[in-house]
């Protein structure tokens, strides 16, 4: 069993300079309580791996605005002008990765694979400084695994084993990120007694979840 802890206590474990995977797609399915606590606690020099940087004032966008992120590995920053501004000013290092390759690189880290061979990005700027592999006269681009110190996960429901279920498009990168980090912190809309989430509905098994964020009571 896991005892759900206050979000501030959990976020305190994240050291400056850490690499974080943060779930969500344009803020949908992002762990908003952990992001807010991280902004409040102020750890800096963070590397963030995420699909996008949302918008100013939304989700991961808050961490960009607060200046806590020095490097971001992401597929899209188009809806956050602040990320682009900071990138052009040299205040933040941005590595742009095609969305499917980003998902695969995270999957490789979590699933014990040394890399993924893809066609995406071949012959484009996305292939810069990456190796190619020729198999049966066909050229592939080698995308390497992406690891993180912490994965900050949003789920729809959790139970006190840490089992997680996800809801609709709030799923996105959360399940794969939960596989790829040394420590997995999960916040859910609700935490249920063990057994309430049926085995079929558990997407992320609780054994890989390290900490549960307590639901805030109004």
């Amino acid at each position, binding site marked *: 069993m896991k005892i759900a802890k206050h979000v501030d206590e959990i976020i305190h474990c994240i050291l400056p300079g850490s690499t974080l995977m943060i779930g969500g797609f344009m803020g949908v399915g992002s762990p908003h309580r952990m992001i807010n606590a991280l902004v409040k606690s102020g750890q800096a020099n963070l590397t963030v791996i995420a699909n996008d940087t949302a*918008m100013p004032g939304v989700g991961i966008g808050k961490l960009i605005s607060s200046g806590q992120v020095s490097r971001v590995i992401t597929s899209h920053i188009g809806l956050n002008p602040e990320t682009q501004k900071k990138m052009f000013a040299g205040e933040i290092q941005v590595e742009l990765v095609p969305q499917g390759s980003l998902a695969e690189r995270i999957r490789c880290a979590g699933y014990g694979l040394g890399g993924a061979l893809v066609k995406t*990005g071949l012959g484009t700027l996305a292939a810069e400084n990456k190796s190619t592999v020729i198999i049966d006269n066909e050229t592939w681009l080698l995308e390497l695994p992406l690891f993180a110190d912490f994965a900050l996960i949003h789920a729809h429901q959790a139970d006190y084993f840490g089992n997680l279920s996800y809801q*609709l498009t709030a799923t996105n990168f959360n399940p794969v990120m939960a596989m790829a980090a040394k420590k997995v912190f999960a916040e859910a809309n609700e935490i249920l007694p063990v057994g309430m989430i049926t085995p079929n509905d558990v997407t992320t098994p609780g054994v890989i979840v390290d900490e549960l964020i307590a639901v805030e009571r109004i």
Partner: protein
Amino acid sequence: MMNAQEIIARRVALELREGMLVNLGIGLPTMVANHIPAGLNVFLQSENGLIGLDARPPEGMEDDDLTDAGGGFVTAIPGATRIDSVMSFGLIRGGHLDITVLGGLQVDAKGLLANWMIPGVLAPGMGGAMDLVTGAKQVIVAMQHTAKDGASKIVPECTWPLTSIRPVSQIVTNLAFIEVTPGGLLLKETAPGVSIETVIKATAAPLMISPAICEMVLSDS
């Protein structure tokens, strides 16, 4: 009089076939959904994790966890499926996606697309565009024929960074329907009321004219 975007959306809609899995990019390509021929069942994919995307919900009936790739509220058809990002792009890369419709900054004489970056000016990132152009069975670029300054967006060679080294299948603009062939760009249809000369003048890349050239038929939905 139909506006330029509506002409493009209505023409692209006629490329859809029964049962297809289709991805519509943000912006103009999304408008194609408004003109899908009546009675035709297609499955729209939203790369953030949905097959069976449907219209925007009425105000007051939104679901925070049911959104499109831009983060906007949507609905889903009965029989829709939620997928995670790994499967979403597995479908795209793995050749399961029948059609992708994307916007473009430039398309060149070989049918190569540039649509994700203007160095030093615009760096939104490629998002899913590189996977879509590389992996979908049919790639349709839906864009205005010329830029706001009047410059042709169909050029001899892309000057901005490429999205993929795989050529697109068709280019649909407010002036023309152009097929990308191994021999070059083939002008197959002109938009209603637009002459062949007008299309040639607005196109910086060489164009072959199809012997069967005709006026565009548009979806009446």
